[in-house]
């Protein structure tokens, strides 16, 4: 076995992962949903204070939702369409807004009902780097 093939798993296991470089998450919230809701939506403002374009390629939730998708609501001739997005790209210095009626995190199958005020940790993944933030459950944008 080549020594390099051992290196990557070792690296991943031993060391704390790096944060997404320059990613600042503000005004994060999850819209409260009626009891029994199977899908919820998460919103936030994602700012890139770094020097290069940030690409968020996955969002994860351990213990709160089955899985998380990135979606965009598009309004065309009065019709709302949901379009899955693979990534969120944020150029240096830019802020990407995830807001009602537009881009949002689609939080699938909550493990249990989330009460108003609950704080849900979500992990945004940028390649190997990850940034975790708490999303409070709220009736309206903060």
């Amino acid at each position, binding site marked *: 076995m080549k020594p390099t093939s051992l290196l990557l798993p070792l690296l991943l296991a031993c060391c704390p992962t790096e944060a997404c470089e320059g990613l600042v998450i503000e005004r994060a919230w999850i*819209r409260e*949903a*009626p*009891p*029994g*809701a*199977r*899908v*919820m*939506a998460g919103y936030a403002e994602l700012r890139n204070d770094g020097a290069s374009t940030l690409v968020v390629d996955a969002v994860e939730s351990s213990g709160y939702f089955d899985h998380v*998708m990135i*979606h965009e*609501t598009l*309004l065309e001739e*009065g*019709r*709302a*369409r*949901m379009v*899955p997005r693979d990534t969120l790209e944020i150029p240096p210095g830019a802020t990407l807004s995830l807001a*009602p*009626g537009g881009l*949002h995190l*689609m*939080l*699938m199958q909550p493990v249990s009902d989330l009460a108003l005020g609950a704080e849900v940790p979500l992990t945004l993944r940028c390649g190997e780097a990850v940034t975790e933030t708490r999303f409070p459950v709220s*009736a*309206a944008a903060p």
Partner: protein
Amino acid sequence: MASTDRSALILLVLVAVLAFALGIHFARRTAPEAGAPVEGMLWPDPPRLESFTLDGADGKPLTEATLRGKWSLLFFGFTHCPDVCPTTLATLRETVKLLEETPDFAQQGQVVLVSVDPARDTPEALAGYVGHFDRNFLAATAPPDRLAALTGQLGILHTRVPLGSGEEYSVDHTASILLIGPGLERLAIFSAPHAAPELAAKIGQIIQFLQDSP
């Protein structure tokens, strides 16, 4: 007589310039005020809603009779819709609150969510869902054929769209809010995105206008 020709030409140019300036002046005076674009039209004799029968969240049928004598705000959605539907229901809750100052709506107004996803939205599920936003909100759905009797006449479109590779799906749908009058008149369609203050102002104006006109 070159100089006479020249004076005549100058006079002609002067007259033309004056006429042009006067034209602009009067056009400005008679033109409608700027900044008041037409936002919609009220039909003099609006089409009426024809009969339909949905299964209400309260276990009773929800039909055109449920809407008769009321100002009804109709919205079409589904409970597995995380973004547009809860946002619109929250907007409708705020709109109803703002319309408390329009007495007729405060007494005779109602909000109805019609689910376009009868496969997943049972009447019981709908009751819990709308009740969370406002306990006075009504909700209903029906199997596709009976649902089409309402969506068809209102021009509401809805299409199932698979999400990923599993069995999960979303429903692309018309996100407009419709105002139905007490005589089942199809009075207005408000297109998304919705904002409560604008919506409440327009609905209040429409109700006021219809009450003032003979």
